[in-house]
């Protein structure tokens, strides 16, 4: 047990802080040590603390709604490892420069002034990390529920 954790437990035993406060402090200590050791976020299993786990899978599910026609009730459940998503993004490095120029021109024509070649590895990592906050929930006119989320 680290010195900080010992102090928190002692403060709890002495009644100086509540159990909730102690829990929050212990989570904060864990998060701090996790960031120092590897820069990764740690999972405490408590969403209320604001600490998130590293996304592992991208999940896409399609489920028929309650009022969907059973004859056309289709279910889709796809789980894609985030490592595969990263590898897929890396495929962009195989695109020939001529094609990238065309893509940039097409984007410029649409009013988007963005250079595709400026995407770096760090940006990709940041993007994948940010996917953890993404959740798409669509209910179609046919009553199907489409969900895209990260777990």
């Amino acid at each position, binding site marked *: 047990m680290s010195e900080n954790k010992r102090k928190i437990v002692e403060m709890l035993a002495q009644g100086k802080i509540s159990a909730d406060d102690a829990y929050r402090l212990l989570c904060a200590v864990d998060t701090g040590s996790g960031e120092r050791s590897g820069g990764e976020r740690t999972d405490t299993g408590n969403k209320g603390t604001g600490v998130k786990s590293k996304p592992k899978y991208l999940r896409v599910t399609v489920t028929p709604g309650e009022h969907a026609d059973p004859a056309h009730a289709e279910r889709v459940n796809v789980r894609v490892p985030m490592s595969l998503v990263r*590898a897929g993004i*890396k495929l962009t490095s*195989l695109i020939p420069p001529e094609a990238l120029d065309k893509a940039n021109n097409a984007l410029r024509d649409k009013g988007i002034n963005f250079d595709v070649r400026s995407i770096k590895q760090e940006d990709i990592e940041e993007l994948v990390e940010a996917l953890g906050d993404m959740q798409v929930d669509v209910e179609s006119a046919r009553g199907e529920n489409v969900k895209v989320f990260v777990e």
Partner: protein
Amino acid sequence: MNWPPMLMHVKVKNRKSDFGIWLPLFLLWPLALVVLIILSPLIIIATLILLGLGQGRWVEWGFRCLWVAITSSWALRGLEVDVQGRNETVQVTVI
């Protein structure tokens, strides 16, 4: 350490048939390594020729393709696809 995919399970179920197969991917990795070792002299010769001709970008592109292919197949572990239609079900699981 991330392990490569070891097994792939493919299952197709419809009115006529119920077909499922386990593919031992772990047997492919040593095979791929042997093929790579056998082909390595040719790869080295092709690399030297291309570099000599001033076509280094093709060498770089080729190695990049190889690296992406390896990392992509390595990252397949954990992939699950499950599609259930009215008459047909398709499941693919990579373990």
